[in-house]
C-alpha cells in the first residue's frame, strides 16, 4: 500500500513552474500588458463598485451587461466591414469607426443595465425583499442573459476582428509599448478620472454618495432615490460598454456567450481588492490585479493560472484586509 502513496507529487513538472528568469526577462512587457488588462478590469469593476455602494448588492448580471457591450462592438464593426485581417482604412476613418462602436457599445450596455434594474431589481425593492432574494435574482438574471445569447449565437466564439495594427510607439527599458496598449490605458484612465470627477463634483454624483451613505436620510433631504439608483446602473453600464470595446480590441476572439463570466469575477475581485464601494479603489484594484495576474501567469508558466491567481488574491484580501486597500466606502469618500 505504501508505494502507491509516492506519486502523490506529480511527476510531470511542467504544469507549474517558478520561472523567475523568465519573469525577470519579460518583466516590463508583462507590466504594460498587465496594466492594459488592469484598465479593462477597472472599468468593469467600477460598475460593481457603484451598484454595491448604492444598493449593497453584488450585481452578478454586470458581467452580462459587459458581454452585451462586446456583442454590440462585434456587430457594429463587422457591419462596418472590419474582419480578421487588418482594415485598409486611413487612421481617421478607423478612429471614427471605433468611436461609433464605442458609443453603440456604451448605449447597448447601459440599456441592458437599465432594463435589468427595472425588470429584476425594482419589484424586489418595492416589497423590501431580503438580501438573499436580491442575490438569487441577480444570479438568475445573469444566467438568463447568458443563455439568451447562447441560444442566439451558439457556443463558439465570434469571428476575431482586427481593429488596427498595433504600431510601436516608444520604448521603455527595452520594451516596446504599442499603440494598442497606449490607447486602452489612456482611454480607460480618462474615463475613470471623468467618473471620479462626476461622482465627487456633480449634483447627481453628490446624490449617489448621499444614497450610498444613508438612503433614508438622503430621501428625506430631497434626493430622488429611485432616480439615483437608475443613474448608477446606467453609469455602470456605460463604463462596461467602454470596457467591452477595449476588451474586444485586446482579445479579439473573446466575444463568446460565457466571456463575461470569468472577467466579471476578476473585475469583482479588483473592486474588493481596492475597497468595494470606492471609485478610486476600483481603479487601483483593477490595475493591481492585472499586474498580479500577468506576473503570476509568467511565473507559473500557464495562462490559465491568471484566473487562479486572481481568485487567490480575492480570498487573501478577504482574509487579511476585507475593507480593501483604500477601504473607504463610496458614501464616506471625500468630495
Amino acid at each position, binding site marked *: 500500500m505504501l508505494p*502507491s*502513496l509516492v*506519486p*502523490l507529487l*506529480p*511527476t*510531470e513538472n511542467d*504544469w*507549474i513552474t517558478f520561472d523567475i528568469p523568465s519573469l525577470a526577462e519579460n518583466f516590463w512587457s508583462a507590466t504594460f500588458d498587465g496594466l492594459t488588462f488592469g484598465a479593462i478590469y477597472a472599468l468593469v469593476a467600477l460598475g460593481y463598485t457603484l451598484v454595491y455602494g448604492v444598493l*449593497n*448588492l*453584488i450585481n*452578478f448580471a454586470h458581467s452580462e451587461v459587459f458581454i452585451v457591450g462586446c456583442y454590440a462592438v462585434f456587430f457594429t464593426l463587422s457591419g462596418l466591414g472590419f474582419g480578421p485581417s487588418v482594415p485598409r482604412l486611413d487612421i481617421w476613418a478607423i478612429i471614427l469607426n471605433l468611436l461609433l462602436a464605442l458609443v453603440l457599445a456604451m448605449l447597448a450596455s447601459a440599456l441592458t443595465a437599465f432594463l435589468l434594474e427595472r425588470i*429584476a431589481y425594482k*419589484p*424586489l425593492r418595492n416589497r*423590501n*425583499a*431580503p*438580501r*438573499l*432574494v436580491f*442575490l*438569487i*435574482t441577480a*444570479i*438568475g*438574471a*445573469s*444566467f*438568463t442573459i*447568458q*443563455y*439568451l445569447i*447562447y*441560444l442566439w449565437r451558439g457556443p463558439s466564439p465570434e469571428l476575431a476582428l482586427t481593429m488596427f495594427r498595433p504600431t510601436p510607439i516608444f520604448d521603455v527599458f527595452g520594451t516596446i509599448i504599442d499603440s494598442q496598449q497606449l490607447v486602452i490605458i489612456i482611454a480607460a484612465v480618462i474615463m475613470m478620472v471623468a467618473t471620479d470627477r462626476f461622482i465627487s463634483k456633480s449634483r447627481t454624483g453628490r446624490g449617489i454618495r448621499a444614497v450610498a451613505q*444613508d*438612503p*433614508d436620510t438622503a430621501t428625506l433631504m430631497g434626493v430622488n432615490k429611485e432616480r439615483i439608483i437608475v443613474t448608477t446602473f446606467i453609469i455602470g453600464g456605460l463604463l462596461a460598454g467602454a470596457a467591452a470595446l477595449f476588451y474586444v480590441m485586446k482579445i479579439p476572439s473573446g466575444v463568446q456567450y460565457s466571456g463575461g*463570466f*470569468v472577467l466579471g*469575477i476578476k473585475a*469583482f*475581485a479588483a473592486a*474588493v481588492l481596492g475597497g468595494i464601494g470606492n471609485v478610486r479603489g476600483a481603479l487601483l484594484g483593477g490595475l493591481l490585479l492585472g499586474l498580479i495576474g500577468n506576473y503570476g501567469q509568467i511565473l507559473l508558466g*500557464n495562462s*490559465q*493560472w491568471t*484566473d*487562479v491567481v*486572481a*481568485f487567490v488574491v*480575492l*480570498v*487573501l484580501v*478577504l*482574509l487579511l484586509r*476585507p475593507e480593501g486597500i483604500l477601504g473607504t*466606502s463610496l*458614501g464616506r469618500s471625500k468630495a
Partner: protein
Amino acid sequence: MSMTDGPTPMQTVAAEQAAEDREASLKAAGRSDHRQPGKRRFGNLSDRWQALSRQQQWGFLVIVVVLAYLLPLINPPIITTEPGNNFALACFDMARFALIAVGLNVVVGYAGLLDLGYVAFFAVGSYCAAMLTSPDSPYLHIPYLWTLPVAMAVTMFFGVMLGVPTLRLRGDYLAIVTLGFGEIVRILATIIPAMKGQVGFQNVGHPPGTAVDGTPIFSNSNGVPWYWLTLTIIIIVTLLVGNLERSRVGRAWIAIREDEDAAEIMGVPTFKYKVWAFAIGAAIGGLSGALFAGQVGFVNNQKFDVTTSILFLAAVVLGGAGNKVGAILGGALVSYIPLRFTAIAEYKYLIFGVALVLIMIFRSQGLLPARQRLLAYGRTAMNQITSRNGKEPTDKDNPSAGPGARAVRQKGAEA
C-alpha cells in the same frame, strides 16, 4: 461588523419577518380563511399535514417511501421518461439532484448563505471517489463504499478552508468566492496532471455484489440499485438534517438567516454556526459527487460546469428554501423536467435562470414554504406570557412588532 453599512436590508428583513410572523401566527391559530385562495394552496397542504396525528403522518410517510422505492420498477406510463431516457437512470439522477438540494438547502435555506459554487464540492467528491478507486489512478486504492465518508471528509475540509476567510464577512462575499471556487476547481482539474484533465478516470469503483449471471449489481447501466442506494442515503441524511434543524444548531441557523446582527447580539456565535452550515452542506455535496462518480464510472474535467451550480440553486429555491421536503421535490423536478420533456432540455439553463428571477419576484418562498413553526411557537409563547400578566396580546395586529422573532433570537441565544 457585518451589516452595519446597510440600513435598508435590516429594515427589510424586519418587515419580511413581521409578515412571516403574522402568517405563522395565523397558521398556528388555524385561521386559514385569511389567505387568498389559490396562492396558498401548498400552504393549506402543509396545514392539513400538521393537523394529522403522528401515526397518520408516519403511515403516509411509509406509503410515500415505499412508492418512491418502487418507482423505477413500476415505471408509470405518463410520468416515465422513456423513450429517450432510461427511467431507472432518470430516477437516479432525480435522487442525486434531490440529495444535492438537501445539502444546499442547509447552506442557503437554513443559514441563508448563498453558495454559488456548490458544483465544486460535488466535483471534489467525485474526484475523491475516482482517484481512490479507479485503476487509472496511481494512488492508494480503497473499496468504493469507503470513499463515501472520505469524500465527505475531504469536501468538508474544503468547505472549512473556503468558509473561514469569507464567513467572517457579510454573506455577499461568500457568493462571489464560491462562484470563483467553482471555476477554479475546473481549471485546476485541467492543469494539474494528477487530475488527468479531459482524459479523466475510467472504471470508477462501485459497491460490491454480483448478480447471478456474474455481472456486478451496481453496474453503470443499471440505475435501480444506484437509485435505491441514493434514496436510502437521502432518507438518512434528511433525518439527520431534520434533527439538526430542530436542535440548537438549527435554531441558531434560522436566527442567523432572519437577522444576523440580532443573533450575534443575543449571543449566538454566528461565525461558528455559519462555518458548520457551510461545511455540512459541502459534505453532502461531496457525498452526492462520490455517488455520481460511482454510477457514471467516469470522471473528467468536463462534468463540472459552474452553470450546474445554478441548477442546484434553482432546485432549492423552486422547492422552497428552508424546507427539506421542498428541497427534495425541487431537486427531483429540476432533474426530471429536462429528462421528461427532451424537447426543452436544450433550454434548461435559460428556463431555470428565468425561473429563479420569476420565483424571487413573485413567490420567493418557493413551492413549499419553509415551516414557520418555530416563529409561531415563539409568538404563542409570547401571547401566553402577556395574557397571563393580565394584558391583552396587543401585538396580534401590529405588523411592525416582532415578538415572535425576538423569541426565536432568544431561543437561538440559549444555544
